[in-house]
């Protein structure tokens, strides 16, 4: 490769990576999008979710009893450039089957990369794509952490309705994510010895691609107050964002292709450098859970807390 071609290539890559000139986290024009808890948001930002706590009951099947699964999780996202970030996510699970002892352990580490392609201020629109990797074998098998890696390329978008002509709709925004989880292993076989038959039994579990899709609808009272009409809301209501999140999984192969997921109505309160979120988790069918679960999160905006150190991109101007 000639030196000039190399320089041109490097300049092109640099322009691509540094293109979007990020402003404040989660903003597109007048719109501030909250960091959603269930569905990954489309923004590239320095942020820390610590902790995210969820609790949900699962139905039993066959001889397996129903159980309650409680997860404690953290996610840290770090901007490399203003439009490119890497994230790390780790959960600790406690599974309590009915009438049995609980099992607990760490799940697999998840590492994500996200690139913000478009951010258009007038239309309050943002588009990103990313890929997340689940590190197989990292976590504990007792909490069903997979022993194999998988990757999930995903497209993210966000759109605020500030540009529509109807006042009561202008505080509304939607975000969405659409991805395909691709396991790096097609099947796992497990051989066990059956003492009754005095024979070895081999069980084969097949792993299929899964469509992962979700959306959020968020109605920003801060946006209403600051951009549409001051209706005199005081604290803490002037910082509240009622939100409905929904996340689903649809297997793309195998005999059972039923979609599972939850719909989460809740509230997010946005402070100056943190947000607090609380949502109910409503399973969409029997396979998705039993009863109503709960999801809670404390989320730190690291670019506000540490604007001159870990809260800013490693390369490139940030503001």
């Amino acid at each position, binding site marked *: 490769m000639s030196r000039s071609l190399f320089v041109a290539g490097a300049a092109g890559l640099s322009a691509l990576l540094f293109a979007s000139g990020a402003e404040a986290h989660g903003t597109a024009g007048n719109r501030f999008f909250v960091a959603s808890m269930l569905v990954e948001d489309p923004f590239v930002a320095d942020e820390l979710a610590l902790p995210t706590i969820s609790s949900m009951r699962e139905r039993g099947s066959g001889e397996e009893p129903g159980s309650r699964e409680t997860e404690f999780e953290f996610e840290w996202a770090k901007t490399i450039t203003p439009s490119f970030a890497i994230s790390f996510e780790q959960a600790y699970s406690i599974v309590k089957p009915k009438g049995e002892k609980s099992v607990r352990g760490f799940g697999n580490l998840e590492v994500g990369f996200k690139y913000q392609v478009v951010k258009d201020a007038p239309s309050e629109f943002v588009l990103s794509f990313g890929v997340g990797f689940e590190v197989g074998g990292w976590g504990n098998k007792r909490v069903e952490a997979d022993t194999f890696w998988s990757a999930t390329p995903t497209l993210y978008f966000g759109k605020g309705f500030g540009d529509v002509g109807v006042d009561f709709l202008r505080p509304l925004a939607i975000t969405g994510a659409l991805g395909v989880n691709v396991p790096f292993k097609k099947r796992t076989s497990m051989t066990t010895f059956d003492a009754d038959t005095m024979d070895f039994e081999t069980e084969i579990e097949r792993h299929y691609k899964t469509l992962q899709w979700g959306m959020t609808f968020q109605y920003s009272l801060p946006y209403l107050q600051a951009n549409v009409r001051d209706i005199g809301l005081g604290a803490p209501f002037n910082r509240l964002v009622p939100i409905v999140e929904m996340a689903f999984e649809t297997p793309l192969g195998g005999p059972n292709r039923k979609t599972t997921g939850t719909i989460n109505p809740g509230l997010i309160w946005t402070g*100056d*450098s943190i947000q607090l979120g609380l949502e109910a988790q409503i399973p969409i069918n029997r396979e998705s859970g039993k009863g109503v679960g709960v999801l809670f999160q404390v989320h730190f905006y690291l670019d506000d807390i540490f604007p001159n150190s870990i809260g800013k991109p490693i390369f490139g101007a940030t503001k």
Partner: protein
Amino acid sequence: MKTIIGLVTALAVNLLAPYGAWAHAALQRAEPKVGSEVSPAPQKVTLWFTEALEPALSKVEVKTAAGKSVNAGESKVASDDKRRIEAAVETLSSGTYRVEWSVVSVDGHKTSGSFIFTVK
């Protein structure tokens, strides 16, 4: 350790005092109020933010429905309260006006927004 102290402090500040010292400047209130109808016509537009502003990088512009500026001079961050910015306006006739603001808080974060008010 500094990171942990920073996070705990951020949590405490946010919970105990809704408007902390680090973050983006968000519009807290305005006079005339966002989306309001007023009479008589105001002589200035005043905006209060949640954070102190950088005077050299913060501005407010008031425009007619046709997009013509009606500012009477440059907008100014108040010297006695850095969270307040004012724009004097020309004599306003009846009609709808758009206030467009773009500010930079003292921590360097840029935010912007707009709203309308109507003079009866």
